Structure formats: C-alpha cells, structure tokens
C-alpha cells in the first residue's frame, strides 16, 4: 500500500516539475525582460529538490515535531527582520538577503505554521463538556490561542504587503482547525466574526490591493493597467483550445502580451501552448498529489502527522485553485504561485519540503 502510494506521489511530482520546466523554458524563450537563466536556475532547484525529497522521506519525522515551535519562532523573527531590513522589490518588502541567496520568509512561514499548529493540536482533544468554565477554556485553548499563532505571521505578511500569502495562512489555519475536530458551532461563530471583520481589513488595504480587487470584479475598468493582466491571460488560456498552439508557439506568450508569465501567470503559458489537454493533465497531477495526501491523512494513527498532512494538502489545493482561478479571471490577482511550476526558489523549495514530508509520512504509517 505505502510503496504504491509513494510511487504515485513521486510520479505526480516529477510530472509537475517536468511540465513546469518545459513551460518555464517557453515562457523565457525570446523573452526580452527575463533571460533563460531563470530556466537553468529552476532546473538546478529541481535537481536539488529531488535529492532533498529523497532525503526527507527517510528522516524520522518526529524530529519535525520536536523542532516545530523553534522553527515557527525563528520564522516569525525572520518575518520581523524582513520588515526591518528586507529587500524592496516590486513595491513590496518580501525578500531576505542571506549572503548570495535571497528568499522569502513568508513562503517558509506556511510550512512553519502547519508544523506548529499540528503540534499544538496533537496534544489537545477538543473538549465535549458542557459547563461554562470548560467552555471558556475550550474557546481560549482551541480557538483563540491557535488563532493568535496564525494571526501574528499573517499580520507580518500582510504588512509586507503580501495579501495573497496572508490569505493562504488564514486558509491553512481554518483547515487545520477543521481537521482537528473543533465543534461546528465554534467554527460557524468564528466565520461570522471573520466576515464582519472584512470592512476593517478593507480599511487597511493598500491602494493597489483595493484596485486589484475592484479590477477583479470588472477587468474592463482598467484594461491597460491592472485589468490588462487578467484580460491577456484569459485570452491566452482561452485561445489554446483543445490541443493548444504548440510548445514555443503561443503568440500571447512569445510576443510578450503576458506579464509575469514566468512566475504567477505561468499557467497561462501552459493553457495557450498545450490547450485543454495540457491544463487538465497539470491539474490532474495536482489532484493526484492532494488525493494521495488525504489518503495518508486518513490512515494516520498519529494526530500530528494527520494534521500536518491535512495542512499541506490544504495549502497545495488552495494555491493551485487560486492561482489557476486567477489566471482564468475567476479570482483577483493576488500574487500566489503555482506550486512547483512558477519560478521562484523560495516557493519551489517550500513545496519540495512539503512533498518530502508527504513521502516521509506515507512510509512511516506502518511504524505505529
């Protein structure tokens, strides 16, 4: 069973990486703004990533349990450091310089939070008692404490500003809360509270973020500015048809109509050049990954493993759905990468770690 699952995960991941590299090659082919060095860089990342996944799948995952809080704490410090001394790029402070390398702590934070929340809830069983005192304890312990754990990095990421990642962190928090077995009524209350907070959040949004949300609602209000990206990527995906225009032959891509097509909008290259066949295969690979993750979670005897797996599946699914939805014009442009396909070392390596974790858990299941 587990060997079978492992093979499936390995093949899905390699397939995704392969598709990603081919798409990236095309996206940078003849691109005036981005050189093909990006492609070689990502290829190197993929090689390193495959090795890393192989090693991770053989490490005792309990070590992650032990390190979860420290990892989380360090990550919060890094986020603070980014705000204090990060590198400015594209209107946001997201990068941390570490010698020759630079990376985004916000990407790493996703994994750190999953591990920390996983450890937090692994020690707690949601209370089923009915007296008032214990209810207050439940609300504090099961809801407020973990919420603060998520809210701190969320606020820091939001400040960068990186609305998309902040939203993802919140999504992961909700899913882990749900998976931990919190009573539905608490969940419902919590959701009502969140919705009523929306106007307050709107007040704190940056001008360009408000603009993006408005443009999402109607791309035609700014066809050459914020709406341009949505319109062009929609044209790219739609014009691909069933089989696409062929690799390196997408006109939207090759003639520079698609901005950011090597990072957030790489899915539009896949859609244009490989058509519906290419997009469904890509989405299918991600689905297989998510599905395998859920199989692992379902068969976990260990709550930490189950919660972490659920968190990983959640973040993977959310990123794929939001990114593809964004490219198709279904979601606002929020700067969320397509896992393992979009160019970006931080994002790529974090997902390598996550998949390595899945591989590890699929193996360890029998130990318990």
């Amino acid at each position, binding site marked *: 069973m587990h060997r079978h699952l492992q093979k499936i995960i390995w093949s899905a991941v390699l397939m995704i990486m392969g598709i990603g590299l081919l798409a990236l090659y095309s996206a940078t082919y003849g691109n005036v703004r981005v050189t093909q060095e990006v492609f070689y860089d990502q290829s190197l990342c993929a090689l390193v990533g495959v090795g890393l996944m192989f090693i991770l799948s053989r490490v005792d995952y309990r070590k992650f349990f032990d390190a979860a809080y420290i990892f989380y704490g360090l990550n919060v410090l890094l986020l603070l450091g980014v705000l204090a001394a990060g590198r400015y790029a594209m209107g946001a402070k997201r990068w941390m310089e570490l010698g020759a390398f630079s990376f985004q702590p916000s990407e790493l934070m996703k994994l750190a939070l999953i591990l920390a929340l996983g450890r937090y809830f692994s020690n707690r069983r949601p209370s089923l008692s009915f007296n008032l005192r214990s209810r207050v304890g439940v609300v504090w312990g099961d809801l407020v404490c973990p919420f603060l754990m998520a809210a701190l990095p969320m606020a820091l990421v939001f400040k960068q500003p990186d609305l998309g990642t902040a939203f993802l962190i919140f999504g992961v928090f909700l899913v882990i809360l749900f998976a931990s077995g919190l009573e539905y009524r608490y969940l419902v209350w919590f959701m009502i509270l969140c919705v009523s907070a929306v106007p307050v959040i709107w007040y704190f949004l940056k001008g360009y973020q408000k603009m993006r949300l408005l443009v999402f609602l109607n791309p035609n209000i700014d066809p050459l500015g914020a709406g341009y990206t949505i319109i062009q990527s929609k044209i790219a995906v739609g014009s691909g*048809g069933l089989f696409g225009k062929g690799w390196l032959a997408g006109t939207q891509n090759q*003639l520079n109509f698609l901005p950011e097509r090597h990072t957030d909008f790489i899915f539009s290259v896949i859609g244009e050049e490989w058509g519906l066949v290419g997009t469904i295969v890509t989405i299918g690979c991600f689905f297989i990954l998510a599905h395998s993750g859920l199989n692992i979670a379902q068969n976990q005897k260990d709550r930490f493993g189950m919660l972490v797996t659920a968190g990983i599946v959640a973040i993977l699914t959310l990123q794929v759905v939001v990114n593809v939805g964004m490219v198709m014009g279904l979601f606002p442009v929020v700067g969320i990468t397509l896992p393992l396909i979009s160019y970006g070392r931080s994002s790529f390596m974090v997902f390598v770690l996550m998949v390595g974790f899945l591989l590890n858990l699929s193996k360890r299941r029998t130990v318990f």
Partner: protein
Amino acid sequence: MRIKILRVIIIGLFVLVAFYLGYLQLIRGPYFYSLSKNNHIRVVSLEGQRGRILDRYGALLADNRKVFEVVVIPGELKDREGLFDFLSQTLQVEKEKLLETYNQKMYASFAPVVVREDITRTQAIVIEENKFRFPGLLVQEDYRRFYPYKDTAAHLLGYVGKISRSKIEELKNYGYNPQSVIGYSGVEEFYDRYLKGEEGGMQIEINSRGEQVRLLGLKEPVKGQDVTLTIDLRIQQALTELLGNQRGVIIVMTLDSGEILGVASSPSYDPNIFVPKTNLSTSLPFSDSGSPLLNRAISGQYPPGSIFKISVALCALKEGRINPHRTFHCNGYYKLGEREFRCTHAHGDQDLIQAIAHSCNVYFYHLGLMVGPELMEKYARLLGLGALSSVDLPYEARGSIPNPRDRKIGYPKTWYQGDTLNLSIGQGEMLTTPLQLVQMMATLAQNGKRVRPHVVKSIGGLEVSQSPYQMISVDQKSLRPLQQGLEAVVSDDSGTGHVLAIPGLLTAGKTGTAQAGEGRSPHAWFVGYSSSGKNRIAFVVFLEHGGASQNACRVARDLLMRLKEKDIL
C-alpha cells in the same frame, strides 16, 4: 470523518476548475483565439505610386517627385522631448507645431507618423547622421504628386488630395481606404481608377509593445497606369499666354477626331498647393472672387450671342422656310409692337451669307419669327447644345435652351414674341459652354459628322478606343450655304472676323458679342475652324466680359499665327 469532508471539498474544487477550463478553452476557445489573433497581427497598407500624366508627345504634365519625410515611430520613441527639440532645431520649425502634427496623426504605436514632409536633402542628411541618438526617428522617401507646369493646365489635370469622408463611403468597395489619395477634378478625377496605384500591404506580427516581430506576408503595391493626353504642351502653353490675366477660355480641337489639343481656362491656379498632406493655404483658390477652380471650358455657362445664328440659319434652311438667296432689309432695328430690337447698324439688303458675314440681327429676327422657338430649340439640340458633349472630364455643364414649354412651369409663364427675337440672336436665357460651341462648329465644318471631344489618347500605352462618330441628319444642301457664310465672316472684306484672314490658312467661323447683364461689358466670342495643308482644327476664343467680339477675333488671330509659327498649322 473530517478528512472525508475535506476530500469532498477538494474534489469539488478541482472539478470546478476543470469544468471552467473546459468552458474557457473549448466553448469560448474560438472567441479567445480570434482575440489573440487580433492582438498580434496587423495589416499595414502600402500605397502604389500614382500613374503619370503626359502630353501627346510624352512631356510630363503630372509627375511623382521623390521627397524626404521625417517619420517617428511612436512605439520605439524613448526621448520624446529631446527628439522634438532636435527636430525643431534642424528643420527650423516650432516644436509645438511638430508636436501638434505628431499628436494629431498618431494612431498606433507601430504605425510611422510623418511629422514633416518635403524636407531638404541637407536636412535629411543631418537627421540621418543623428538618427542613432533618437530611437524611433527615421527619414523616409516618398513620392509626391508634382505638376511641373503649375497653372498651365490646372483645370485639365485637376489635382490630388486625401480622400474625403463622403468619397470613402462611396468608393470603399473599390479599393479606397481613408488613407488613399484621390484625384479631384480634371483628368486626375475622371481617370482616377487608372491613375491610382493598386494598394499593396504588409501583414506583420507585432508584440505587446507594438513592435514588428516579423513579416507574415507582403503584397507589393502596383504602380498606377500612365495616362497620355491628346494635349500638345506647346499649344497649351500658348493658350495660357494668350489669355494672360483676361478671364476666358480657349479650346483647340482637331476637326476629324475630336482630340483636344489645348484647353485653357483663366484665371487658373497652381495644383501643387493641394498636394501636401498638411497645408493651411489651400483655402485661397476657394475664396478668390474670380473662381479660379472653375473650369470655364466645360463648366462655365454663357449666352452664345450671335454664334447661335448659325443654328437658326440651319433651321430655316432645313425646314425650307428660306433659300440662301432670300434677302431681308435691315435699317438698323426691327420694330415689334412698340419696341425696337436693334441691329449694330443699318445693313441694307442682306442675303443669308451676307447676314452671317455681317452678323445682321434684323435678318435673324425675321428667320426667328418664321420658324418659331420650338424649331429653333430642335435644331439647337440637333447641334448638341443643351446637352453634354460627353468629354472625358468631370463636372461638365449642360447649358440650357429656353423654350415655351419650360416657360409654362417657370416664370413669367408666357412666351412673348420678344423672347423669340432674343433667342434668334442667342441672347436672353440661352446658355452654352465653350466646348459645346467648338463641337457644334466642328460638326458643321465636317458636313454633319459629330465627333466626341476628348482629352485622353492612351492609358498605359493602350490607345483609348473612341466611340464612333455620329452623323447628324442634315443634308449638304442646307449645310453648304452655312459654310459659305462662315467663310465669308473671315474672307469678306466687311466680315466681322476679317482680321483672321491669314495667308495660307483657310479659316471660317462666327463672332459673337453676348449681353452679360446691365452695365457690364459683354462677353466676346469667336468660334471657328481653320485648315492648312497639315492640320484641320476647330477652336473657340471666349473672353468673359471681354467687350466686343473684335477682341476675341484679335486673340484668335494671335492664336492662329502662333500655331502657324510653331508649324502646327
């Protein structure tokens, strides 16, 4: 349990995404495909060079001159301010003016904008040398219509200009687009479809910045066809000189083929001023009170005066009302009721030939009353008056022949005897164009053979086939006395056109002095035909408000002398 719910949610999300992808790529696919195509393919039109216009011996009357243009490609422009500062300095033009032109004409980032046309060679070299400093700046060669003889044949040639909005609507199915250059008036307009180059085009692929990436297809534009006129430049120049500042018309046409050798209308204009794409002074000819744009030879309508007497004489002869020897007595006026209709002076007894030679009004008053207005109109129409000559030029006027029938629907309702008298000497409401009179005279000279006057000899080296001539139904017996009369005008010592008697030439014709309104000088006419051993021509000299017909006769004499000097007659 919770994991199961999560699984359902996740499956749902993926299915939703997959369905929306299917919708976008399959159902809306063709729509987005066409959008992507519009995004990256542009068609740029290339205008073919316009055909030239030549005189009958190959002299260029309308040519295409190579000019240099300063062109800016908006998509490649980087240092806009610097570039226009530089251009302003080099071309000695205000920067604001250049910028205004640029802003007005720019419509797509890939489409070159002409900011200044017709710059000097030196300026072109300076710009070429500095091109590297300003991306998007180019010097381009273009061809520009050029009329080397300026106002010499302006009405005949017409001019070219950008197509007007109403014309596009009319002609868009015939290969014209809003950028097309089209001929206005004259040969340029009438033969536009031959002169016009065939439009070519480039299909180019562009990128998101509008830069050309590659050429997908090219259709070479085709040069328009050269048009050779029947005009002889030497004659044309002579006619222009003869008219000088005098308003009027001279037409010279070959008798047997109807080829127009020269046609001048004065005042004239320089057609070159209409050619530049940006010009402010072009309203000048429109506001001039002398109407220089009017081609008086075919669009001007004037009373023919005594020239109409020929038509009246033909009518009376053909209808058998008189024979050529019938005399009437002229004592200087004709009394109709209380009113006296005057003659120039008392001619005494006149037969038909004398009456034509002396242009005796009284004689023709008698003829007019004998035949009546209806028959006079019939013969006028037989000779081509009141109808188009079908010359191959645009905006020809018909003229008009008054008659009792039209009066009934007009004013003053009644046709009076006085109207008949007026008509019989070509006064009053009778209107003709100079060309109609030349055609009429040629028909009489050729014993009733009517040719169609025309100005174009061949197009693209191929002779233009002329519609066969018509014979009008007039017998020799009626025509001969007329011709004798016309000859007597010149040959008779007392003939009104005796100044035209030139040794070696056989000239005939008729003078006319047409009333042109109270207190204004009358129009002076001479219409005739002349032959030497070499050539036979018909011609008209018309001087607008030129005074007595003697003035026209003197010009006609100069004309014939010049033609003889130039060995044409």
